[in-house]
């Protein structure tokens, strides 16, 4: 049984490149806090025992000491400002968009109550016209076509959507452009130390680089309604070969379906509603 008093032992296994830095920063603050805890609680315990009320004893009329006040103003300032400045470097690397690495894989993500939806650019690596690539396509977003895809754009012919699961290659810079079609959600990958709220009307850049293959969980971390707790998805981190195979297979499937649809114009309306 792990101890409640050892915070560092409770993190789920880290699988992302910057996750190690975040955990290390947490550990630094943890040890600083442990130090302050023992200092303050130690002093308090000592004073409480030594200066307890005893007969014939009297308090000490003393109103304070300016040198001490200055000392315990400046020392915490240096300590905490140091933590802040050190944190900032890591913050910039993880969140500033101009520090984001060049994407190897780009995925679109939409949250809706209580489902995660992902759009892949397919084997050609290019998205067709949709609500992300073209602002004007946002008007086409609907319950059946949440990404506002334009079925006439050939670049989008192999784009495919998956729900409540996604797959990414290992050791690749994955950039997820995320938004939502109804309320706020939060894209939380506990093992990869990723969390980003997504906002309707705005596309957030979320990047990560995972170094370990396997199957992990995605959770929603922002209250989004009664089904919030069950807004769960799984994701798989695959080797590059497995990922490419999956991508090609899905692209081929969707192309086949689109081709089938194209032969039957009557059915086209249901799969790609462009109606207002």
């Amino acid at each position: 049984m792990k101890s409640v008093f050892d915070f560092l032992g409770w993190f789920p296994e880290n699988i992302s490149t910057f996750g190690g830095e975040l955990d290390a920063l947490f550990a630094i603050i943890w040890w600083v806090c442990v130090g302050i805890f023992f200092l303050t609680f130690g002093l308090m315990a000592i004073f409480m025992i030594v200066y307890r009320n005893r007969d014939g004893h009297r308090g000490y009329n003393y109103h304070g000491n300016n040198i001490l006040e200055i000392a315990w103003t400046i020392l915490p300032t240096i300590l905490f400002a140091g933590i802040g400045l050190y944190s900032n470097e890591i913050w910039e690397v993880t969140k500033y968009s101009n520090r984001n690495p060049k994407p190897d894989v780009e995925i679109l993500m939409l949250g809706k109550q209580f489902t995660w939806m992902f759009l892949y650019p397919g084997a050609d690596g290019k998205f067709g016209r949709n609500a992300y690539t073209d602002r004007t396509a946002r008007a086409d977003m609907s319950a059946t076509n949440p990404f506002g895809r334009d079925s006439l754009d050939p670049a989008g012919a192999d784009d495919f959507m998956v729900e409540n699961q996604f797959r990414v290659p290992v050791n690749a810079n994955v950039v997820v452009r995320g938004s939502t079609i109804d309320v706020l959600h939060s894209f939380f990958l506990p093992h990869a130390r990723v969390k980003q709220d997504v906002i309707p009307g705005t596309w957030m850049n979320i990047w990560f680089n995972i170094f370990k293959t396997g199957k992990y969980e995605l959770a929603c971390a922002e209250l989004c309604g009664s089904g919030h707790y069950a807004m769960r998805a799984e994701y798989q981190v695959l080797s590059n070969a497995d990922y490419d195979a999956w991508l090609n297979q899905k692209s081929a499937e969707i192309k086949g379906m689109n081709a089938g649809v194209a032969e039957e114009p009557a059915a086209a309306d249901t799969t790609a509603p462009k109606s207002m």
Partner: protein
Amino acid sequence: MSTEAIAHSPSHEHVHEEAHHHVLPWYRRYLFSTDHKVIAKQFMLTSFIFLFIGGAFALIIRWQLAYPGKPIPVIGALFPSTWVTEPGSGIITPEFFAQLLTMHGSIMIFFVIIPLAVGMFGNFCIPLMIGTNDMALPRLNMWSFWLLPPAGLIILTGFFTPSGYAAAGWTSYPPLAAQTGYPTFTFTGQTLWLIAVFLIGFSSIMGGVNYITTVLNKRAKGMRLFDMPLTIWAIFITAILAVLGTPVLAAGLAMLFFDNFLHTSFFLPDNLVTSSKYFGGGQPVLFQHVFWFYSHPAVYIMLVPLMGVVSDVISTFSRKPIFGYKAMIFAIASIAGLGFIVWGHHMFQSGMNPLLGTTFMLSTIVIAVPSAIKVFNWLGTLWRGNIHYSAAMLSALAFVSMFIIGGLSGVFMASAPVDIYIHDTYFIVAHIHYVLFGGSLFGIFAGLYYWFPKMFGKMLSETWGRRHLFWTFIGFNVCFFPMHVLGLGGHMRRIYDPNVYDFLKGLHPMNQIITYGAFLLGFAQLILIGNILYSLFFGKKASRNPWHANSLEWAAPPHPGHGNFDSDITVYRGPYEYSVADRELDYWPQWEPGKAISIHHHTIAVD
């Protein structure tokens, strides 16, 4: 002293006033009273009722998390059918769970901590501790209380609406809180919630204006600003915070109300895919900015008055002057000032520009400095004291120790990159409860044990007080400390059933331990209620100054009537002259004549 003439209040009038008030009808004396002490007791009674409602909600939440899908024992069978999966099953639904956590947070913050910390202590302490007969604006004061019960009824009426209680969290972020799916002019739980919190805001503003006016204009003869006890300083600064911050919240709430009630679109962007057709052009994150611009200072509104109370209690029972009186005031002022420029740390992951994250991280982390100053000064006060462990003192020490833990866990969140992982997890829940329960509520207990003799003229039982604090302290830590590790395990807050997730399965025993702690904590409060009720009827009569304290409220009779003081009050010195050398008594009340000089931070009495 040139300030004497200004500070001196027209104290002759209160003799006449007292004569008038004897003929007031009962409802003017007990219900619509303008006496600050009666209003304080009204705040106390109302908030204690809400404390138990909010607490009961919390226990239902805890039961669900420890035993998901198991019927609530005893009371579960009585739940109305909208709360449970099947009538009589006693298993709560996810919808009701969301309503519970929303109502628990809202009630505890807006109807318990703020009215107790600001309403009760502000009203009771200010006129007594600055030596005057009543507030500057007694009628406004009465109204500031009388907005509370209707607001409480309105928020609880949410139950009878088709949607049930508000269910978007106490933060009520749109679009979740703005999309009703109901036609215009429909009252839902959410709209009633907004009206209620809006009214509470007005109550805070009225109270705040009154406190500022009273402190500045009605101090007793001879009392300079730097002769005021820290309780008054803290409440004074809190009142400024409330007056500056609350109107901003009111604006945000009004806009959200219009979005709900009139289908405006302040916070709803274009191209939503929902059943509602009323949206477009709004910005959801704007609400978060407006909300936290108030609600972060609100954390200090809930905490700062108790920092003052605890300072007074620690000084009195250590029989020592407070260490660094002015440093304490400047620390409170800088906490309050910085409190207005740190709101963005609630929004590191909200999607606002990460550059703002940098700014808010640096301003937030600097708040640790005045907090550290306060802690070290409290420790400095204990140093070489003669500490009496009364219930009030134990409570104040619990405040200090729990505030240290709450403050330290705040450093983790203040660091934006660390916050990425712990944001919206139970780590945050642990932190806020260490600050608002471990901090504020222990501070409220300290003040209650300390001033109860003056409030009701009876002594509380010290033995039962210690028992109450012991079990509360144990229950509190068993309940909230493990929440830190839940958060580090990744446990999201506000989830109905953690067992949905594989990575949370190992944390289930922890959730159960927390629930045991919560029940212990909840039931320990019955000791306090028992103690209060017993003391009111059978308690020992209090003397005028039972703790041998210095500040002016102890110059008043044990159970002061309207007008407070039975003699004219003149202030001769600061409130912390304990254990002055060459004096037989180890305290030297502010109202006792006598001269002293100060040499190297020591006070020496001279004849």
